[in-house]
């Protein structure tokens, strides 16, 4: 790995440490517009037909970790897993493309 990249990853890790800010700052806020679990319309409640499968870490948290502290831990875990997967996916896909290109030649 190039030297600047090590430094950059170190800088990024600082933001990973403070990522719970992303839920704590908005703890008492509602969901982002259009991302509600349900909508009250007068006397009726509208519910979206949700994704039928099961996301392992829904809402970037371990299911059941409800307190601010545990949600923050869940958020850290989610950030690390999600970012690692981002890196693995990009490297994996480009590797797969290379292999395919290699075979063509």
């Amino acid at each position: 790995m190039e030297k600047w990249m090590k430094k950059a990853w170190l800088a990024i890790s600082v933001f990973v440490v403070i990522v719970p800010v992303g839920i704590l700052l908005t703890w008492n806020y509602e969901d982002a517009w259009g991302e509600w679990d349900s909508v009250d319309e007068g006397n009726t409640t509208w519910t979206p037909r949700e994704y039928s499968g099961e996301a392992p870490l829904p809402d970037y948290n371990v299911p059941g970790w409800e307190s601010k502290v545990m949600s923050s831990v869940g958020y850290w875990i989610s950030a690390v897993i999600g970012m690692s997967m981002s890196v693995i996916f990009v490297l994996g896909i480009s590797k797969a493309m290379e292999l395919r290109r290699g075979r063509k030649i």
Partner: protein
Amino acid sequence: MHIPDGYLGPATCIVMYAIMVPIWWLAAKTAREKLGDRSVPVLAMLTAISFLVMMFNWPVPNGTTAHMVGGTLIAIVLGPWAAVIGITIALVIQAFFFGDGGIIALGANSFNMAFVLSFVGYYVYKGVFKTIKSRKPSAETFAAGIGAYAGINVAALAAAVEFGIQPYISQGYCPYGLDTAIPAMAFAHLIVAGPVAAAVTGLVVGYMRKNRPDLLNLEKLTLSEG
């Protein structure tokens, strides 16, 4: 801006996937031609950064939240096609593993955040940078900030239109029409997510111009001329 499943009717979801297939294909084709060995780890890092910045939800004064995306940053460093790839990968991970944004709606979300945001962000940045002529890092910061601001807001508008047309075309899906969706999405992104995206993108790109201009000279995955 991650549209969950159940908000967009089947027609919209199919059309958005149909639009995205050739875009994904073109992005992959451009990457095969132009994404060099040195650029791949940079794209991996920028994709991880995008994943991270999307977790920073910011409070919107009307009680909702919004976040930046990072597509303009990837587009400025590696070109908008690279941003299509990076943001799509982040969206896939978010949808399947974190339940953020729908899987049936993935075409629509990719269109808004991976395609529209990145291309608008990149070409606005290019336009502003050309217009102001200065080549100081501060000029780069300004142009990148304007680009990121424009990109996220046009993307939010696209999402709002997709939400807002549902009452007219698909009963039982998003209950709010254009008159509600557009102002709500515009408000959150014009006054919160837009400024955040502008500041972060501008500062990062300006820092790179000042300290590591070579990283801004990697081959860019653009439409043609570059």
